[in-house]
């Protein structure tokens, strides 16, 4: 894809981009992946702890413990976001703190906190899903397609 884009550029730009790329600081892929693995794994580990606690001490089964676990994780995220810690974790961990549901929570909560200066209705209400909205939109739409195909196959294909 990147190559295709480059072909449409004048030669001087192509030459410069190659020139620039040699001097660009590369993203430390291996280091980033290790950090993402450790932090992401740790967040999931905490999630498992919380979920186990819900199973042991409350009336939740493995099936139903997922929801309160998510809510608890997002609550913790709210505190970390509000006290300005989550963005530091994010800079360190990259996808490790973005991919778990805490990253979804952080996207929503940080947008809500940020846009409060524009008022609660237009600022918070209007921007709360500024970042996380696309996740919901594509999640719902792809789930719709998948479920539709599956339902049709089951009903008419006798799957």
């Amino acid at each position, binding site marked *: 894809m990147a190559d295709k884009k480059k072909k449409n550029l004048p030669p001087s730009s192509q030459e410069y981009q190659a020139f620039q790329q040699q001097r660009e600081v590369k993203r430390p*892929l291996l280091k980033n*992946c290790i950090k*993402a*693995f450790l932090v*992401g*794994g740790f*967040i*999931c*580990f905490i*999630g*498992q702890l919380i*979920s*186990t606690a819900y199973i042991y001490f409350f009336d939740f089964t*493995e099936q139903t413990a*997922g*929801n*309160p*676990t*998510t809510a608890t*994780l*997002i*609550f913790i995220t*709210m505190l970390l*976001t*509000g*006290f*300005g810690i989550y963005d530091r974790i994010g800079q360190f961990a*990259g*996808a*490790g703190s*973005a*991919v*778990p*549901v805490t990253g*979804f*929570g952080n*996207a*929503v*909560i940080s947008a*809500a*906190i*940020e846009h409060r200066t524009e008022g609660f209705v237009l600022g*918070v209400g209007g921007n*709360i899903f500024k970042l*996380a909205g*696309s*996740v919901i939109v*594509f*999640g*719902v739409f*792809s*789930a*719709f*397609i*998948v*479920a539709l*195909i*599956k*339902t049709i196959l089951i*009903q008419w294909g006798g799957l």
Partner: protein
Amino acid sequence: MIFFWAFVVGGIICVIGQIMFDVFKLTPGHTLSILVVVGAILDGFGLYEPLIDFAGAGATVPITSFGNSLVHGAMAEAEKHGLVGVITGMFEVTSSGISAAIIFGMIGALIFKPKG
């Protein structure tokens, strides 16, 4: 055992996300959207539930499980009501993540200021 595998599987899903960030230069928005779609598709093939059975929170905490549970809700309702259920059942299972995010987002906006 489940704790170990939750760590490993959750970590691996995050590494996939990191590779999408760094190698394919995708924004977090693109990356998370793709992961959600992947979760939905995996569940379409019945592959995500076994992963949850195996890795517990390692599979339910990453955002991929959001796509999975959307499909689950839709399928559960579709069994009862047919094709209409695909639309109406979508949020049956997933509502907690979104509602928690909205509620705590609002509370956060009430009590916190950005720290910069």
